[in-house]
């Protein structure tokens, strides 16, 4: 590669001017002639039989066009499928009708759809649909749901257990037999609500003359949505176009297939008018997936010198009322397989019980299984350190997988691609001046101040992933990625990616990749994504895969273009292609730099095709499809420093240092931004966020007045730094960074709070670490 000017540069995000100035077009900005509006009637009960639905008053209300119920859709709109069918787990996939037919299973479960001339008329008519319910006992706790006598959600899911999945590796019995010390702990990883700034939206338009259905929607993966909607609606894929315009964040919540998009599409097809549905925030909290919600019991076996011998335990994963699109894979493949973290732990035995409850379905939320795994192992390592009287940094260093072991196969069977874990920890400790802080902490304690430091050394699995592995673990799709680089006669390029960025900044980073490869100005590259009619097959944006997989496909397509351009240059310059060098945007004869053609000249020649090498096809456009050979495994060390107010128990985050290694960096500004956002969400789980249900299944934190998301005012400046350990999995050495902050931050903050209270005998506290919780600890230990 030529001397890098664009690749690696902190270019400002080209997305931002339109986003900041309100010129971006989101789904709700789509206005079509004759548009009708859909609103959903939702269950106020967590569990009930539907005795009767009377929509006659609603149907006769002003502006109302139609009201449909679950029975009306039966046989016409297919059930909402589960698309990650994990093997060897006795998986049950209960029916999820698009509108509830006999039974509602969570507050917010949709029972009817109202179509009206305006959003207001639709909202008014929702209140006029009379639904008679026979309320049934509900269960919200995943352990209680498996016990005898618990309310049963689905007739074909005994004891509400959707699956039992287990991972084993090494000799766990021997590990615990030979252990000199064991520690055990129950950890609750509380339920979170993704809270994308833009709620879900859909506009569906059907042309009966052509049979084409166009669905504009908030999607992280339009091709997957096209495929699933095609199955649900019976519209063939080649007549179904899914467009994801500007999407205002997803955090996983816009991966999945939900009832509303299918119902709105069906209504557009049957009523002959374009339809829009705009989710409001209360619906978003009740009807769009939640994340996390694990109860985990873990036990570590170790030697007295801190060497960890084995990890065993069981997780009860709350999956909510239905099995959402990817739900079975999140707490198993993306969680259970990562339980040993960045440590060389030879033995593992971990069972995950997936449980259905009368709550909103749970699926992938930023990090999706890995934050839960990292939280578990990082808490356990600190608990072991406390048990042994070891420094938390020292116990980590003792157990890290050493750089010489990579590629490193761990007890779960995964093979980590590359890593140097100690380097990130050393750097982070250097930045915070760890030894100096320990001295300050001791002095502060003498003054009655409560200071704490928390470490989190993580590794995560991302860059999803090899398609063969996807198939082996039951993911009902491929995980390769596509790219097209189309060079126009002027030498400008429009490039197309099958990924679907929605805030991450790949319109900028992908342009950097292509501009670098082709030696053209950044501004000469336009990145197109999010439209199944414009883009070859692709699998979307999630699992920190966009750059590692989609960016690699883009690189390969650009290199194909460059290679064809070289052939043309050689032909025009009358030398053999091996004698052409490409530098600074020019194809030159080796040793004769004045004999050269610019990339733009070649682009014109290729598109005119007046004089091309014999047999060469005209044009300058190439596609590439990249299927990675392995996942990528970013890693790093995060350090949090907190002070607790002894008078209130409130935690103040004083410093936050993130040292990440996401392989080679295309744009440091964007990487920093991803880390900032991820850390904010990770810190928020530790300190503030929790989706709380009461015993009857009512969501107590049903709005932003009660669900505490992080804001800039409650966070410190986040200090970022990096090491660069390239991945061998792709030619650019890329890893992912979209989720690392969320994965790393939560245990860093909890470890810091526990550290601040450790001299008071505190070993563990469950999240969120609210002021009252800590105040009660302080009150009981003084």
């Amino acid at each position, binding site marked *: 590669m030529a001397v890098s000017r664009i690749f690696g540069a902190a270019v400002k995000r080209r997305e931002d001017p339109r986003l900041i100035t309100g010129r971006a077009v989101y789904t709700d900005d789509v206005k079509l002639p004759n548009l009708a509006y859909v609103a959903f009637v939702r269950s106020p009960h967590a569990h009930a039989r539907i005795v009767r639905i009377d929509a006659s008053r609603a149907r006769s209300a002003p502006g109302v066009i139609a009201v449909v119920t679950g029975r009306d859709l039966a046989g016409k709109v297919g059930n909402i499928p589960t698309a990650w069918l994990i093997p060897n787990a006795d998986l049950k996939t209960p029916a999820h009708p698009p509108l509830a037919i006999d039974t509602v299973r969570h507050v917010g479960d949709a029972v009817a759809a109202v179509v009206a001339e305006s959003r207001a008329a639709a909202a008014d008519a929702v209140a006029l649909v009379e639904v008679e319910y026979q309320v049934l006992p509900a269960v919200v706790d995943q352990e209680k749901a498996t016990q005898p006598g618990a309310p049963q959600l689905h007739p074909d899911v005994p004891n509400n257990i959707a699956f039992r999945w287990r991972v084993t590796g090494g000799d766990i019995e021997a590990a615990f037999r030979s252990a000199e010390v064991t520690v055990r702990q129950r950890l609750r990883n509380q339920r979170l609500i993704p809270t994308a700034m833009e709620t879900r939206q859909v506009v569906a338009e059907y042309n009966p003359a052509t049979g084409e259905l166009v669905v504009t929607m908030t999607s992280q993966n339009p091709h997957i949505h096209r495929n699933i909607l095609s199955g649900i609606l019976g519209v063939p894929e080649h007549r179904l176009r899914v467009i994801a315009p500007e999407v205002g964040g997803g955090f996983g919540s816009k991966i999945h297939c939900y009832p509303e998009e299918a119902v709105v599409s069906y209504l557009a097809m049957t009523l002959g008018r374009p339809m829009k549905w705009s989710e409001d925030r209360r619906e978003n909290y009740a009807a769009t997936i939640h994340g996390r919600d694990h109860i985990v019991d873990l036990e570590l076996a170790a030697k007295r010198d801190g060497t960890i011998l084995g990890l065993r335990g069981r997780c009860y994963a709350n999956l909510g009322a239905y099995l959402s699109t990817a739900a079975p894979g999140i707490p198993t493949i993306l969680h259970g397989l990562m339980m040993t973290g960045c440590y060389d732990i030879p033995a593992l035995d971990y069972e995950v019980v997936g449980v259905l409850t009368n709550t909103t379905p749970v699926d992938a939320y930023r990090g999706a299984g890995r934050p839960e795994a990292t939280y578990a192992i990082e808490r356990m390592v600190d608990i072991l350190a406390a048990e042994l009287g070891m420094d938390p940094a020292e116990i980590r260093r003792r157990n890290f997988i050493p750089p010489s072991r990579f590629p490193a196969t761990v007890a779960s069977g995964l093979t980590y691609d590359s890593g140097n874990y100690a380097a990130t920890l050393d750097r982070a400790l250097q930045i915070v001046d760890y030894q100096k802080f320990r001295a300050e902490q001791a002095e502060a304690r003498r003054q009655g101040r409560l200071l704490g430091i928390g470490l989190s050394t993580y590794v995560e699995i991302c860059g999803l992933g090899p398609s063969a592995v996807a198939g082996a673990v039951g993911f009902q799709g491929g995980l390769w990625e596509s790219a097209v680089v189309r060079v126009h006669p002027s030498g400008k390029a429009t490039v197309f990616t099958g990924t679907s960025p929605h805030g991450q900044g790949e319109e900028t980073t992908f342009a950097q990749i292509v501009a670098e490869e082709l030696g053209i100005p950044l501004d000469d590259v336009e990145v197109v994504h999010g439209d199944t009619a414009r883009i070859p097959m692709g699998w979307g944006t999630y699992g920190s895969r966009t750059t590692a997989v989609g960016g690699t496909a883009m690189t390969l397509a650009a290199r194909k273009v460059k290679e064809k351009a070289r052939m043309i240059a050689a032909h025009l310059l009358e030398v053999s292609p091996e004698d052409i060098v490409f530098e600074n945007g020019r194809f030159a004869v080796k040793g004769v730099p004045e004999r050269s053609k610019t990339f733009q000249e070649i682009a014109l020649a290729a598109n005119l095709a007046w004089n091309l090498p014999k047999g060469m096809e005209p044009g300058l456009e190439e596609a590439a499809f990249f299927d990675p050979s392995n996942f990528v495994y970013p890693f790093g060390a995060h350090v949090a420093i907190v002070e607790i107010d002894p008078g209130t128990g409130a935690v103040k985050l004083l410093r936050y240092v993130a040292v990440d290694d996401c392989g080679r960096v295309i744009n440091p500004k964007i990487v920093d931004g991803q880390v900032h956002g991820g850390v904010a969400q990770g810190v928020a789980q530790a300190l*503030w966020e929790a989706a709380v249900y009461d015993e009857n299944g009512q969501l107590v934190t049903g709005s932003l007045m009660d669900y505490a998301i992080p804001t800039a005012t409650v966070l410190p400046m986040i200090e970022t730094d990096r090491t660069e350990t390239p991945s061998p999995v792709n030619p650019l050495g890329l890893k992912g960074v979209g989720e690392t902050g969320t994965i790393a931050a939560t245990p860093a903050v909890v470890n810091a709070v526990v550290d601040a209270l450790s001299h008071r005998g505190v070993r563990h506290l469950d999240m969120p670490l609210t*002021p009252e919780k800590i*105040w009660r600890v302080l009150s009981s230990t003084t």
Partner: protein
Amino acid sequence: MIPSAFEYLAPTSLSEATAFLAAHPEDAKLLAGGHSLIPLMKLRLATPKYLVDLQHIPGLKGIRETDGMVEIGALTTHYEVLSSSVVRERLPVLAETAEVIGDVQVRNRGTIGGSLAHADPAADYPATILALDAEIVAVGTGGERTIKATDFFVDLLTTALKPDEIITRVRIPVPAPGTGASYQKFPHPASRYAIVGVAAVVRLNTDGTCATAAIGITGAGSKAVRARAAESGLVGSRLDDAALQRAGAAAAEAVDPVGDIHASAEYRRHLVREFTVRALRAAAERARSR
């Protein structure tokens, strides 16, 4: 999140507005900054038939000092209060209160009159208004009357205003020399309302003893209250730590908090004690440095 249908009125005089209110006492709501009312309407928790917008009525905005009083028009936004040179000079505790209301958007739109009339039990202004012995001036069809802040808050979301009355301004006496005041708040992690907020105003005698003390508390019951027993216990003291702790304990006795998922009643009572001490300590320090 779509309000039910309502009729929008934009009166241009107080007499027009009060006459309308008198004619529709049950089903009209006044719109000031809208930062409490509009969300309630979007959730259909409030479904007024008539929305009476006050913004076209002249004379309801602005801050001025007159005859030892600071007068603040009802439609003055929180931002205008916190950035007012008169307020920052004469009533810094009111600016300190306005600075921690909600967020930037709320402070730019929300108004002092709207906040007081809404009487949210966790709003910030009521604590400070009570501790400063402010007066609320309201106009109705029967004319103008002045209501003492201590008589104004009646119960949850309920004030002494009659159905046809509109707050026109708030009158706050400029504190005498030797006075210091502070508002200390423990914010709700999601809404940023006060879980507990305490305003303390103390005046010192020249010998450093406490001449008068006033403590207003919000967030710890169905309405904001004064902690009278705590106040009287401070008079004559040197506002030393023991005195402040006694006042904190007395204030905690004076409230009747309700718990929720973010703070139990017991914890709120503790916070009243803690923040009473903090507010008094800061107020005393300011009084001493004046």
